[in-house]
């Protein structure tokens, strides 16, 4: 276990280094700087600004200095939101995005597994067809269509929930449902397919022969095995939720990390962009590592050393 973890952490650090370098160099190499405006700044002022944000000197100097700062945990000042550090902006926005992401993940997993097993158990019935049609629909309709439709229904017509912004816990309900939608569908499809395969496995006949109750067979024996593909899907799912959250946050005007990401690109705010990319990469790689560990715990045939 320990050598596996060390190797994984080392390779994660390597990937992170590449991504940070790529982000910084691409943004700095592309034309237009963070202080390029319609009206040109006087050269003296621009020079001063660049010096203040450590963006003067050769590209190599800027890059190596930036890497040094990042290693010390200083993500520097944002060039757009003047006088505020990237650490501060992230500390403020990350909890909102994390709450949204985690609740969407939970909602998607629970609802998806429930719908999928329902469809598998009632294979070939109307419930099965309806659930799978609904799932296909949810996968095919982009979140930026379902989101506005939910707002139209629940916020504008019924007036049950707020339209957007972040004033109360209730304002996270619609974004969570919107974000979880396609994920529910994918998980339901996966669960159904793999449970259908497991339901014909000999070990379930043995369990039945032992006289176990049908519920125990389904929820303890079959589902534990059938959930393996679902667990391995959690890694890609985290990636989908990350990109999805960017859209959902802009749809519902939530002050989360995703909105910073888009703004940082449009404003060439290189340090803010770097900070967001670091956070996203760490989250995603951490999730993938967790999935791999969970996998061995669920399936004793797999050993991490290999």
């Amino acid at each position: 276990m320990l050598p596996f973890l060390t190797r994984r952490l080392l390779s994660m650090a390597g990937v992170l280094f590449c991504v940070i370098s790529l982000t910084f160099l691409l943004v700095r190499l592309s034309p237009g700087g963070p202080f390029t405006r319609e009206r040109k700044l006087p050269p003296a002022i621009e020079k001063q600004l660049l010096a203040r944000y450590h963006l003067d000197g050769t590209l190599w100097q800027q890059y190596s200095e930036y890497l040094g700062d990042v290693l010390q945990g200083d993500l520097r000042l944002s060039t757009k939101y003047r006088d505020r550090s990237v650490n501060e902006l992230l500390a403020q926005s990350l909890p909102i995005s994390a709450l949204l992401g985690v609740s969407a993940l939970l909602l998607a997993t629970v609802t998806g597994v429930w719908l999928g097993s329902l469809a598998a158990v009632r294979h070939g019935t109307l419930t099965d067809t309806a659930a799978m049609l609904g799932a296909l629909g949810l996968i095919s309709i982009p979140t930026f269509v379902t989101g506005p439709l939910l707002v139209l229904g629940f916020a504008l017509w019924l007036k049950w929930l707020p339209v957007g912004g972040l004033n109360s816990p209730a304002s996270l309900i619609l974004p969570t449902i919107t974000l979880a939608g396609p994920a529910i569908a994918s998980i339901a499809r996966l669960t159904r397919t793999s449970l259908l395969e497991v339901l014909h496995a000999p070990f379930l006949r043995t369990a039945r022969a032992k006289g176990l109750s049908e519920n125990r067979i389904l929820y303890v024996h079959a589902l534990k095995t059938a959930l393996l593909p679902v667990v391995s899907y959690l890694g890609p799912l985290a990636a989908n939720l990350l990109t999805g959250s960017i859209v959902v946050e802009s749809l519902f005007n939530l002050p989360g990390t995703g909105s910073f990401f888009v703004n940082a690109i449009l404003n060439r705010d290189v340090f803010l962009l770097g900070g967001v990319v670091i956070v996203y990469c760490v989250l995603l790689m951490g999730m993938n590592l967790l999935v791999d560990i969970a996998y061995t715990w669920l399936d004793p045939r797999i050993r991490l050393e290999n």
Partner: protein
Amino acid sequence: MTRPPSTSRPGLLRRLFRRPAACVAMLLLAFILLSSLLLPWLLNTDPHSTSPHTFQPPSFTHPFGTDVNGRDLLARTLEGARISLLVGFSGTLVSLCIGTTCGLLAGYMGGKTDALLMRLVDILYAIPRLILIILATFALDPLLQRWLAPIQDGRWLGYTKIGILIVALGCIEWLTMARIVRGQVLSLKTLPFVQAARALGQSHTKILIRHLLPNLAGVIVVYLTMTVPAVMLDESFLSFLGLGVQAPQASWGTLLSDGAQSLNPIRSHWWLLLFPATAMSLTLLSLNFLGDALRDALAE
């Protein structure tokens, strides 16, 4: 030497046509594709011409209504269809080339090549894909603009973003394809017919192209049908965020972004959201249906 007729292909198609859902999906796709190509020519409307009739609800002259600049939404939706489908299909083609080549090489060569390629796939899986695409578009677009500006008075300038999107999306969406193809090759290459080909002294390239590739066609086609909607969704995400296709051109993502912004409690211009959303959802739904049906037909 003539190649014996492949036995799997016509069978697969016949099995596919037996499924009503697949037939409906294919008809719908053909309808959307044909109307996006032919209707603008028949109706003779320009998606970019503005008029003082802004925010007109659907009427006889403007079946889908008009937008904030008085442009005909039907013409815009059809233009969006052309661009979204173009990006979806071409991006998938790019991913097909990269994914199949990598998968074939990794599976067939094994050893160091396999380890190297699969590590690359693992690493790319771990990076948020959309971030890479956004960075690539962002960095490459100005370069391509500068390069294309002198050619034919810059008439290609409007298309740089689309070109970059196609390549970038294709370069990101090949990962799963490579894994699937590699897995198939790993099991195929142990079969007697490959060993026989090798014993006959056929070159590796020939074995890869003449013997392995035809056997992979089914899996590849199934996965391709599922990649197209994925690429289209990614493109619309980017365009929705204002990072993809640029005005005055419009893809379904851009139109939906306009539509979503027009929803407000005072006056909602529902047609701006309804028509592009229906068109896009129907297309993605048909593609997904077709992919599912193909997979089932293949497994039958």
